């Protein structure tokens, strides 16, 4: 590129001139940069939404026509080629519900201990490190552990209980960490006010800290429900894949996600596979909407600055 003729004084070194020219060419003005950034960010957000809408739309489009009342209320026949998914719905609700019922109290209690009842030190570091490691372990490893420990060593067999205990271990780190964050976000001033009125540490934790942290804690619980519902590998090895309605928690039961896996993997029925996926997707949507509704109600009542 040709440079404009320079004035005789002061002499500018050639290298400097080249740099200046390059800088001008490469760096658009701040306002232009701002516009580009806004457009880029908008595009990224749009891509995210588009992917989400596409996946959910695709599954619902293919699955919903097959989701009939009888599909939801009948047992599968001929390995799922015909009939419905009632036992899988029951199995999913039991395994997931039980897993979260076991994991939530343990996880929240651990978070309370870490934040309110102990000073930062070696012990808290070890617990936190353990939780983080637990979070990174692949679910199939949890499945293997659950199979060996709960199903065989404890003699629970392939059962809803084995599956729930295994899933509980798997979601525990999520619940601990999200609860911990939520508890830490509660302003210190609330605790001071509570102590200042003569309440004990437990009263302060229960009535002020946990109450204020509830929206955050329930976010963690909802995430865990989602993870449990969609888990396949761990439940395959622990809850088994029985097709019938379970009589008790000691019976094996197939969850919806696992049923979908078999239908698709073993090419049993594409229509029923999509229908099962549609039921799963809608269940997760419903749980999330319910959680949002609960949270909004809670926030409106307490006057939290959302």
């Amino acid at each position, binding site marked *: 590129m040709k440079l404009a003729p320079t004035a005789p004084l002061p002499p500018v070194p050639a290298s400097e001139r080249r740099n200046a020219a390059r800088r001008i060419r490469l760096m658009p003005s701040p306002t232009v940069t701002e516009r580009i950034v806004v457009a880029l960010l908008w595009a990224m957000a749009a891509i995210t939404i588009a992917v989400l809408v596409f996946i959910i739309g695709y599954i619902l489009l293919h699955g919903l026509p097959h989701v009939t009342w009888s599909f939801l209320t009948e047992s599968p026949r001929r390995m799922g080629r015909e009939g419905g998914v009632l036992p899988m719905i029951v199995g999913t609700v039991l395994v997931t519900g039980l897993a979260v019922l076991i994991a939530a109290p343990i996880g929240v209690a651990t978070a309370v201990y870490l934040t309110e009842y102990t000073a930062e030190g070696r012990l808290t570091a070890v617990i936190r490190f353990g939780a983080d490691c637990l979070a990174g372990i692949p679910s199939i490893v949890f499945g293997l552990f659950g199979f060996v420990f709960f199903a065989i060593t404890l003699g629970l067999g392939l059962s809803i209980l084995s599956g729930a205990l295994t899933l509980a271990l798997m979601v525990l780190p999520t619940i601990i960490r999200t609860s911990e964050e939520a508890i830490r976000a509660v302003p210190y001033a609330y605790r*001071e*006010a509570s*102590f200042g*009125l*003569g*309440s004990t540490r437990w009263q302060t934790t229960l009535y002020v800290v946990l109450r204020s942290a509830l929206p955050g804690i329930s976010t963690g619980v909802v995430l865990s429900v989602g993870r449990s519902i969609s888990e396949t590998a761990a439940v395959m090895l622990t809850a088994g894949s029985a097709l019938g309605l379970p009589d008790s928690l000691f019976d094996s039961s197939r969850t919806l996600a696992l049923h979908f896996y078999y239908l698709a993997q073993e090419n049993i029925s594409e229509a029923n596979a999509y229908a099962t996926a549609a039921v799963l997707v809608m269940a997760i949507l419903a749980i999330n909407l319910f959680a949002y509704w609960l949270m909004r109600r809670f926030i409106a009542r307490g*006057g*939290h600055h959302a």
Partner: protein
Amino acid sequence: MTDAMEYKLQASSLNLYYGRFHALKNINIGIRPRSITAIIGPSGCGKSTLLRCFNRLNDIIKSARVTGRILLDGADIFNSGIGLTQLRRRVGMVFQRPNPFPLSIFDNLAYGPRVHGMRDREELEMIVENSLRATMLWDDLKDRLNAPALSLSPEQQQRLCISRLVAVEPEVLLMDEPCSALDPFATAHIEDLMRKLAEQYTIVIVTHNMQQAARVSTETAFMLLGELVEFGDTTQIFQNPRQKKTEEYVSGRYG
């Protein structure tokens, strides 16, 4: 004990350390009942720390260590039979920033009585009404006791926090710069309220605002670098200080 009884609160040879830092140095001070005592001094002089000794709120801080004695009605608050929760019920605190709980107005006021075991709904309603009347909030708020406390104005929030204390029937009110988050009008209102409350309660106020100390208090303590430099009648401290440091501070030469 006759000497002790003329004070509601009395600190003697009080020292406090945060780890190695010597935050309060040999403090001796007596707070008279049913009066307003102001503690003034530049930032970091230990005035809030001293205030927090009176209800042992420093106990939350792990590194804090205290020597010396503080007597409440002649009884040592560190080693007598006064339990920590009982002490804090008798010696309540109002904080710098209004800190109502994210609950309804009613639940904020009922919080104290509830943690102390009160369950009777009618009695709670009576306590709520009386404590709101004590801070002149009742007429404004009686129709919306279920509204979120955080929807109130900063002044109302601070009044609510004072009401919340009144609800547990304390004897001493510790106020840690209670007006620093408020505008001048709200400050004047809270000061009026303090004068009225002093007919019934013993008030200790920490303030950055020397005019405020001069306006509301009967006695003033001046602190500097963890030491109590001078303590006496407010008019004497402001008009005729005995110590040169006090004179320099109240005339605005530093701080």
